[in-house]
């Protein structure tokens, strides 16, 4: 087990190395002169030259890469071209709102979706199943921003239960954080509830047909125990996969929600950076999101061995 975890962690290194190379090449392989792209149309030759030297663009490619990689190892992702703040610092300020929202969303989704899926599978082809599946289709089909505005309209403007937008760190005031985070989380959760409920139902349906479920019932075990103790654990692997992918997607995919609810997260940071062609920030964001993806995949893989003792790598 320990050997497996170690090997699995070692396998992360080449993946991240390849990502780093791609990120590095992103700027260098863009057609045209990177300096000109960065400086914009109205730049003077002197300005261009200054940018070239500051980015080390005159050196051979491999030298540039090693300089960049060395800095990367020291935790230096460069400096924003627009605000001249270090990229790590910018990300550091923006990442927590995103992670908090993403975590809360995924926890909310799992708490809602897994029981829904289990219930739908248990009451397969009854109205319960149809309601759950109907909701699932709806959740898939309505765009995030529509749901977001509908929630704002209903809960903030009409009912006045919750603030319209904004963000307060949980460490500052947890109550205010919750009040502001609940709508964005519900909005984001809709699609993940749909997704996870569907996967749970499909996986549970398969497991409920297995012989050991019949054995459990033959022992006189209660239905709730059959469902949650015997069946759900066996159905867990595909569900965990979906939850992992969902969480990873959430980190990178909260752009719209952050815009709608005016949350200062990395989604908006990325959009701003792209619009301003702030390459160091874009590179930093790609590296960060890839690292998060890889890390979550690692966790999901490790969770498999927890759920299913037969899985040994």
């Amino acid at each position, binding site marked *: 087990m320990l050997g497996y975890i170690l090997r699995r962690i070692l396998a992360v290194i080449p993946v991240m190395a390849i990502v780093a190379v791609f990120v590095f090449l992103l700027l260098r392989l863009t057609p045209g002169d990177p300096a000109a792209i960065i400086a914009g149309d109205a730049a003077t030759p002197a300005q261009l030259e200054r940018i070239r030297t500051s980015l080390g663009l005159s050196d051979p490619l491999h030298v540039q890469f090693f300089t960049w990689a060395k800095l990367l190892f020291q935790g230096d992702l460069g400096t924003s071209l627009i605000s001249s703040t270090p990229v790590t610092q910018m990300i550091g300020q923006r990442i927590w709102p995103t992670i908090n929202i993403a975590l809360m969303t995924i926890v909310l989704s799992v708490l809602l979706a897994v029981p829904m899926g289990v219930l739908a599978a248990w009451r397969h082809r009854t109205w319960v199943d149809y309601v759950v599946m109907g909701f699932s289709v709806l959740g898939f089909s309505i765009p995030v921003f529509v749901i977001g505005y509908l929630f704002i309209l209903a809960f903030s403007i009409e009912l006045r239960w919750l603030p319209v937008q904004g963000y307060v760190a949980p460490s500052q005031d947890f109550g205010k954080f919750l009040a502001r985070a609940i709508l964005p989380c519900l909005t984001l959760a809709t699609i993940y509830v749909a997704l996870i409920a569907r996967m749970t139902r499909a996986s549970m349906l398969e497991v409920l047909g297995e*012989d050991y479920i019949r*054995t*459990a*019932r*033959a022992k*006189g075990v209660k239905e709730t125990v059959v469902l949650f103790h*015997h069946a759900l654990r066996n159905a867990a692997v595909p569900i965990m996969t979906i939850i992992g992918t969902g969480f990873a997607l959430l980190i990178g995919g909260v752009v719209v929600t952050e815009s709608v609810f005016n949350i200062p997260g990395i989604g908006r940071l990325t959009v701003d950076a792209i619009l301003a062609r702030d390459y160091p920030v874009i590179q930093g964001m790609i590296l960060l999101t890839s690292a998060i993806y890889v890390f979550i995949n690692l966790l999901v893989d490790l969770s498999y061995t927890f759920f*299913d*003792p*037969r899985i040994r790598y």
Partner: protein
Amino acid sequence: MKFKSRNFDQASNVLEITGLTVRLTGNDKADPVLDAVSLKIRQGETVCLVGESGSGKSVTSLSIMGLLPKGVLAATGGHIELEGRNLLELNAQAMRDMRARKISMIFQEPMTALNPVLRVGEQIGEVLDTHTKLPAREKKARVLDIMNQVHLPDVERIYRSYPHQLSGGQRQRIMIAMALILEPQLLIADEPTTALDVTTQKQILSLIAELQEKHGTAVLFITHDMGVVAEIADTVHVMKLGRIVEHAPVETLLRAPKQDYTRQLLQSVPSLSPRAPRAMPEGQTVLAVEGLQKVYGAHGVFSRREPTRAANDVRFSIPRGRTLGIVGESGSGKSTVARCIMRLIDPTEGEIRVAGKEIATLTRRQLRPYRRHIQIVFQDPFRSLNPRWTIGRSLIEGPLNIGEDKQAALARAADLLTLVGLPDDAVHRYPHQFSGGQRQRVAIARAIAMEPDVLVADEAVSALDVSVQAQVLDLLDELQQKLGIAILFITHDLRVAAQICDEVLVMQHGHVVEHGTAAEVLSNPQHAYTRALIEAAPGRSWDFANFKELQGA
């Protein structure tokens, strides 16, 4: 043959079923799945329920347990009486309360019947959790005690094991422990030894008998295996199409069956007395295997395991028109040999000569022209045909691959279907429209469409009911006479081997332990393992087809 002959007239009834009728839910017009089934089981009695697949044996047992699939089947009439209560009228809670306390059940496939992600100790303990309020320490002591009673070794270790870490026999012992821990009055055993090897089957059967004796449990034993019936039954009920057609004490039923269906069923049971080997034909050797070896897990950077020798120095040859059987238990290496010969897996060492050509070391591409010389029929006809393809398409795929014209291939496919006893319009139909036996005929037709020299039959009749099995064996025999094919017949079933093989090769742990004509090997076995196999074959001294003791036994 010594049958059980205890008298149960004085014993009290444990379970009495009267007029049990089960129907498909919401379909009152279709024939009932169970039609007025009545049977009673008395204390200490073993009642065998026999019949072919689809006869309603399992539905009967699930009805007793109250485990009929909801929304699919429902009991619409009759009584199932246990301790004066009609089980059909109990509510869900009361029924749950009966299970494991009054009635327990063990199932066919101990691998799938145990939850793969829970430790077996916990799974046995769950019965106590559900029905008793024992403190943890006492609970564990009870579980270890019943594990000792079913003769599991090293119970502390097995208590913490997961099902996949145990052997098939051990898993079934766990199931039995789980079923008997609360000493129920009735144990329902649904084909509990069908998935096990004969030697393991023998142990499990005697274990059930031992515990039955000790606790006075009544047993309802469901099986399709007449050999097992002869060994263990007090009373036998024969089922056909949802009805009980005949019931009698075991010896009466086997000696003097009254109903045609019972006679027919018994006559299909292959005899253990081997066929006489046919005269050695003139024809040339079509398959010769020399020094065949297959080693698994020999390399691999991270593997710490010892390499497994699945086949070791296997040698044999088959001339045209003869049948060689490879028999052995699971893990003996018989299927490995078959797959090596088909080159579905690559042998580690050795020679395989098909039609005079050495094929053991050919590359996939070089191998292609030789594939047609050797064809295989697999065990499970439900999974070996592509469900989305018509029969015709499955049949002509091989011929098209070797360049035959499509129209000609289709015409021949229709002929082949007639040859294997199916209507020729079957080309346009899909596998799900056929029964298991018919599908196996299709699989055979598919194999002979390539006009092979050798047909490998890997447990080709093991998934079939005895009567269908007999028909398919006849078909193979007939085809062999017509086409002169050599057959390599892989089986775990000595009765089947005795029926069809000229020569038999016995394998154990990857080694060939005995090789000779079927008559020599089965009538006068030399190796201790062969003897053990034959001794473990249930009902071996009874000649079912002739309703009497086997001559010379």
